[in-house]
């Protein structure tokens, strides 16, 4: 988010020799950095380091000097001084007052953009907010608005209480989103709003009540530009819920669904990424949006993006959107699918591609999507079973980390069982699938799950063992389970604190490995 477009000013060779050592230290520190600081890295807020109008040369030079932690006290002192300067500039009258204000703002903005952990607290204590709000007043020159919004953006990128400090500025920030504002100003205000929205539900509600959503939504109508990207990101933070009212409001904006579909189809990956996150939230929170998007052919667009892109940033929200759509009633989904495009097969192939990826998130969420498809009709199960996904799944069950393993387990188990229709019927086993999956060597993986401390995983493992014991032909199941130390795993539950699992394990051992076991060999 911070360094879009202007790639040139980021790695200037002249500065790099000096910056290298510092850069290395910074990196080392960043990785071993304390918990509180790690938290700042995973917050849904983003610091603005390069201005929305690209910054001028002078700025570029200074911008890239990132400071190291020990210099923090110096930074803070400078910040206090800068706020003082701003105060006097705001209060003064007469000639050149505009320039004074911009200069003071710029200095403050630089201090808030340079460091990895900007001196936000110092700025707030020195009383920056009321001054910055004043600088946002209507009729102020663009440069002033820009610098002020930029300062506010970075203040809002900090800790929760720091973000909350922006409350007085919100109405003005929202106002400057309007179509009369210059693009860089509107974009910078959107950025600030995006940071505020990223803080939490409370602030999101405030923004919504102040009417932030419609102007922000309109900012994504143009075909391209960094403004579209920033606004889309801010919008995604605004509607992320978990309450659904923002999503519901968004879908009512005229033309928004078309704009979304248009961007997903054609736009460059950076914009498409933020748009995809909007789709993630719409598909999770709004039924109306879900059906409108499905009717508009979004599945095909998502599949195409998954098939053609290598950008992890893009793939994550696209995959998750697909997952959200699939997890809605699949029957309804199918009736909307555009006929004759083999979309279902394409979906499975593209999910297989994700399973092949080296990225954990993609593997896990792709398996989740497959598990939902596998929970559908027999045709769906057959489609997956005969696809290139099968060998991948079997391998992943043995080799992948635990959270992926669990999702894969869901897929494999769902493939072996027909979904139960009646209330108390015991779901029927699809023996053909069960046999092929077991002979593919999956039993060990399931028994590993039985041993895990995770209740859900252990339960899955036991349920699958039951399928094997019940469903394998010629009573082979018992031998197979025994052969993989399954009995041992089940007996672990004797002292397990979860009663349901204890009973499940006991009943299996009693029934299949009781006194008659092995008698008729």
């Amino acid at each position: 988010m911070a360094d879009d477009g202007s790639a040139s000013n980021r790695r200037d060779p002249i500065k790099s020799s000096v910056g290298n050592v510092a850069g290395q230290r910074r990196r080392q520190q960043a990785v071993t950095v304390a918990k509180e600081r790690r938290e700042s890295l995973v917050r849904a807020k983003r610091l603005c380091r390069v201005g929305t109008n690209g910054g001028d040369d002078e700025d570029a030079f200074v911008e890239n000097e990132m400071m190291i932690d020990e210099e923090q006290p110096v930074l803070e002192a400078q910040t206090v001084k800068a706020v003082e300067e701003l105060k006097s500039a705001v209060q003064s009258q007469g000639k050149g007052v505009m320039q004074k204000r911009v200069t003071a703002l710029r200095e403050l903005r630089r201090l808030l953009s340079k460091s990895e952990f900007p001196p936000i607290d110092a700025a707030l204590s020195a009383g920056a907010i009321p001054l910055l709000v004043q600088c946002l007043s209507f009729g102020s020159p663009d440069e002033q608005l820009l610098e002020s919004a930029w300062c506010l953006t970075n203040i809002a990128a900090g800790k929760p209480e720091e973000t909350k400090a922006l409350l007085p500025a919100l109405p003005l920030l929202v106002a400057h989103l309007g179509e009369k504002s210059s693009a860089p100003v509107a974009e910078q205000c959107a950025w600030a709003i995006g940071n505020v929205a990223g803080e939490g539900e409370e602030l999101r509600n405030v923004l919504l009540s102040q009417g932030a959503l419609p102007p922000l939504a309109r900012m994504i109508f143009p075909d391209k530009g960094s403004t579209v990207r920033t606004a889309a990101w801010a919008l995604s933070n605004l509607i992320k819920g978990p309450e659904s009212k923002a999503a519901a409001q968004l879908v009512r904006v005229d033309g928004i669904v078309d704009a979304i579909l248009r961007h997903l189809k054609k736009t460059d990956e950076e914009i498409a990424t933020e748009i995809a996150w909007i789709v993630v939230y719409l598909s999770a929170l709004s039924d109306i949006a879900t059906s409108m998007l499905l009717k508009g052919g979004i599945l095909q667009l998502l599949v195409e993006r998954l098939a053609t892109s290598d950008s992890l940033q893009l793939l994550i929200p696209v995959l998750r959107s697909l997952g959200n759509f699939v997890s809605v009633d699949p029957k309804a989904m199918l009736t909307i699918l555009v006929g004759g495009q083999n979309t279902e097969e394409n979906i499975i192939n593209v999910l297989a591609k994700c399973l092949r990826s080296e990225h954990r998130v993609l593997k896990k969420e792709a398996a989740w999507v497959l598990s939902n498809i596998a929970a559908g009709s027999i045709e769906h199960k057959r489609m997956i079973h005969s696809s290139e996904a099968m060998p991948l799944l079997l391998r992943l069950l043995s080799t992948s980390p635990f959270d992926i393993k669990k999702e894969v387990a869901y897929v494999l188990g769902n493939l072996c069982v027909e979904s139960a229709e009646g209330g108390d019927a015991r779901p029927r086993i699809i023996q053909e699938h069960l046999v092929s999956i077991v002979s593919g060597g999956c039993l060990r993986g399931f028994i590993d799950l039985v041993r895990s401390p995770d209740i859900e995983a252990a339960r899955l493992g036991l349920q699958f063992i039951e399928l094997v014991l019940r469903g394998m032909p010629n009573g082979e199941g018992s031998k197979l389970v025994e052969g993989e130390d399954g009995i041992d795993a089940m007996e672990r539950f004797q002292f397990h604190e979860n009663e349901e699992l204890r009973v499940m394990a006991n009943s299996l051992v009693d029934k299949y490995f009781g006194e008659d076991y092995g008698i008729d060999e």
Partner: protein
Amino acid sequence: MAMGMAELGFPYWNPLRRRFPPDSPFFASGNVERELLAKQVALDFTEDEINNLQIIVETESRRISCPIVGCPERLKSLDNFEDHYKARHTASCSVCSRVYPTSRLLSIHISEAHDSFFQAKVARGYDMYECLVEGCGLKFKNYKARHRHLVDKHKFPTTFEFFKRTQLSKKRREKLQKQRVPKLKHEEDKEEASSDAMEVEDKASLDGLVSALSTLTTSDTTPSNVSFGRRHGRGLTFVPRSVHREKPTNSSSTPGPKT
């Protein structure tokens, strides 16, 4: 038999669609990835650093509670959990190689299963069966009474069995006897269906001395000889003869060794 399972209420595998709200922990790692990647360029992280950060962030928030009854441990990772489990919950009996989750329970097992003095005192009417809950201190005359106490006083479920009860026919036992390979750790063993009553019943086949004391007891529970390395870990499935007598089911099919 199929009916039996249904009556027990086994939750069979039923394929269901799973949907998660956007703030579900299920999506947490993807969300973390999103933010780290977005800041990657600005802070110049390499892909490795991102991965490390991701893992640190996730494991810090997700500790694994050990699921064994009464264990308060919370582990940082699955590997740590496995290590912890092996270190703390696999106390193994050197007599019968059975495995217990704590050393206290192991020593209770050894007393109740392998100690002729224990059986002698039981026979004489002393309260020997300790309550399994640490700190309770109460003792009982027999296994069943202790079990009742655990259920009534400590809210153990009635299905909770310190000694699991299953019977093997003589034919099966003899077969297993021949096939058994001496081992100390229970993991390697593949034989086991349930070797429970075996321990008691196979007295005749055990090597070693028969302790003089065992002939003094009226209860014929005791496999009073020590035989190392014969068993493999079904420590939890052993049932002392005294229990067989008290529980009406199944015990009739097993011939008991009479001294």
